[in-house]
């Protein structure tokens, strides 16, 4: 009776847990081990706490979609289980994300590397769209990369199964900088090409090594888009005037993208301009993009195992042993995952100078000026119902600061029995 075996299996005994590796949009993430397969996993404990509506809508979406989607370029949800009134999601372990790759100045991304990353991302997105799933939150930090250089899409908390003819969707999705103009204009009927605009932004970011269109709010974002790509004409995009929040902008001529992406080959320019097509109906699809000559022309896309990775991926083990290293090297600017963010990039030296103890959100916002606070208040993700926590998405662009000792221990003890794992090292400082 396989059925009965499966429903009665005690899954929490199967996974062991070690230290916390990050905090995602709706849960704390631990590194762990699947004792059945020997595979390293990431275990996410979903925040339940005082939620008066039960398990969060984003968690439901993520679980629903990832239970079905299995593809080499999509994060594998290995397991989901309940233990002591907490829901745990078990994922395959990924070392870092594309955000880290892009901002690691010591990494050189060749044309072939960019092509490789783009190819694997597009394959993941194509699999989503083929299976009627819109991701709706594509951005570098949601593209995970592992030590064996697999590239996988993650964070399906905003994903949606589409295809029902009568459904209206909320335009409140996708992180601002990666949001297509039709959503900024309030479109509530849209399709897979919204994801393609985001991919265009990621493509641009891979080439420029900085966000291409970093707006501060919806209006500013539209301004950035039109500055960067020129204003659309009625023949470019016949339906734009009928969108709910349409606003006319002063005309900007279309720039020559060759001058923006100076190192790009003509086929790359052609592909990115097709991703940045204003009319969503004319925008290139994931499938079309994959058969674009860009991918078949020389140089060939870098094979997954040759993609460059940040050095620190290989240092994490030793780094986690030393608290100071962890604090100064892996704490990244909390690029608010689903809120508009400041375009000002935080200087890393400032953070490490700030010292271990004082590293917290308030320091960061003080360092980055008022813009961050503004942006934190200005959430762009009020998707249908809820405002998700401001935080970085799974797995961990931000190495979470340990909380005060008491709070910390409370948290650890709650599921100490769970997965008979070792206790994470408590980083106590001796009071002097």
């Amino acid at each position, binding site marked *: 009776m396989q059925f009965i075996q499966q429903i009665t299996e005690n899954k929490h005994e199967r996974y062991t847990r070690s230290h916390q590796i990050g905090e995602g949009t709706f849960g704390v993430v631990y590194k762990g081990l699947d004792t059945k397969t020997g595979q390293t996993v990431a275990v996410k404990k979903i925040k339940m706490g005082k939620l*008066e509506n*039960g398990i969060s809508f984003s968690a439901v979406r993520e679980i629903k979609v990832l*239970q*079905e989607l*299995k593809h080499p370029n999509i994060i594998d949800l290995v397991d989901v289980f309940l233990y002591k009134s907490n829901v745990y999601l078990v994922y395959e372990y990924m070392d870092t994300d594309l955000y880290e790759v892009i901002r690691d100045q010591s990494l050189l991304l060749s044309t072939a590397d960019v092509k490789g990353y783009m190819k694997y991302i597009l394959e993941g997105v194509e699999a989503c769209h083929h*299976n009627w799933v819109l991701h709706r939150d594509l951005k570098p930090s949601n593209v995970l990369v592992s030590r064996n250089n697999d590239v996988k899409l993650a964070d399906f908390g905003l994903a949606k199964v589409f295809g029902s003819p009568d459904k209206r969707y909320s335009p409140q999705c996708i992180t601002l900088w990666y949001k297509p103009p039709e959503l900024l204009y309030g479109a509530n009927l849209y399709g897979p090409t919204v994801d393609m605009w985001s991919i265009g932004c990621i493509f641009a970011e891979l080439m420029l090594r900085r966000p291409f269109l970093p707006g501060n709010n919806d209006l500013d974002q539209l301004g950035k888009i039109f500055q960067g790509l020129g204003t659309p004409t009625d023949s470019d995009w016949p339906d734009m005037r009928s969108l709910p929040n349409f606003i006319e902008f002063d005309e900007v001529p279309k720039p020559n993208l060759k001058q923006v992406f100076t190192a790009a080959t003509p086929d790359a320019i052609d592909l990115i301009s097709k991703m940045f097509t204003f009319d969503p109906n004319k925008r290139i699809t994931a499938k079309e993009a994959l058969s674009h000559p860009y991918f078949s022309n020389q140089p060939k896309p870098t094979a997954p195992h040759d993609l460059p990775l940040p050095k620190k991926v290989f240092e994490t083990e030793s780094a986690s042993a030393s608290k100071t290293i962890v604090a100064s090297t892996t704490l990244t600017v909390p690029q608010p995952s689903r809120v508009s963010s400041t375009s000002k990039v935080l200087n890393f030296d400032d953070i490490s100078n700030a010292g271990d103890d004082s590293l917290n959100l308030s320091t960061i916002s003080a360092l980055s000026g008022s813009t961050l606070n503004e942006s934190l208040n200005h959430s762009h993700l009020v998707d249908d119902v809820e405002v998700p926590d401001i935080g970085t998405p799974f797995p961990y662009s931000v190495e979470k600061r340990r909380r005060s000792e008491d709070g910390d221990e409370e948290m650890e003890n709650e599921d100490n029995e769970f997965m008979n794992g070792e206790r994470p090292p408590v980083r106590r400082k001796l009071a002097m």
Partner: protein
Amino acid sequence: MPFNKSSQYKFWFFDKEEKLLEIRKAINSSATDRILSYKSASPPKEGKKKKKDRVKQDDLLSVDDEYLILIKNIQKASLLCMRFNFPLHVEASAIMFFKRFFLGHSIMEYDISKIMLTCIYISCKAEDYYQDLSHFLAKVQEVTTAEVDPKEILKLELVVLQGLQFHMLVYHPYRSVFAFVHDPELTKSLRISSVNEIYEASKLIVRQSFLTDASFLFPPGLIALSSLHQCVVDDSSQQSILRYVQAKFGHQEQVTNSLNTIANMLQESKTKMGVDTSVIEKKFVKLRKIVSNQQKETEKENNKIAEKKEQERRDKKTEERSIKEEQDTKNLLG
């Protein structure tokens, strides 16, 4: 997602009706064992109470009893969703969740109405038809006599999700019916006055199919075709549906057989719905009273044990900490 790659196919799809019966028997007997073997932790004070707390073999439900009560409740769930004016996909998923949960659990051990409400609430989340729990429960209060504490739903939400193995994508026949009636290839050869007419009629049959095990045994597309097949009355239209099936899917014989089997299952369910269950229901109510008392008692016991453990753990922690601090101070001074 292709149906044969879905969790529904991999986990909730069976090749034989007998397998379902086998599972139901196993679930029923393990629940029976648990209930009969229950022993109160607190010693009974008076003889009177003791008698009341005991479940006798006769008080328990058989597999068939359970099934009859279940399908009556499936119908209730359908009605509830209709009264709420929920979209069809919310209704379909809610019912599927409800059926899946009680395939793996016995109705003797759970509050069936609360599980039903929880399934509907989860379906609202899974089908992007989200509403606040308080809002949802207000609606429930409007249309039912149920008195529900939101905390209970929150607790059951996790229990149900686990019972569903966290599978929340449901393939349901409503959608397939919609697709079929909008395929001119099919509808052009049917003798019907309007597409809408046949759509509405098939929807009703799909709703009836919820009361059968068809969803565990046939892909939603087949259930949808069977519904269409059953609502056209003239021979020529029925023939055109079969021809359409042939052209589209091949293996006509197998498909025709399945269509018939589904139609038979529907007939059977109608008979079952007609059975007078008042005696079984009375038995069920009585049994549930005792079992839920037992469960409450057990929970109290467990909580006590957990609390005790927690206290011990805390004490140990405090002790450890004071030792550590002492040492730290020593080290510092030394």
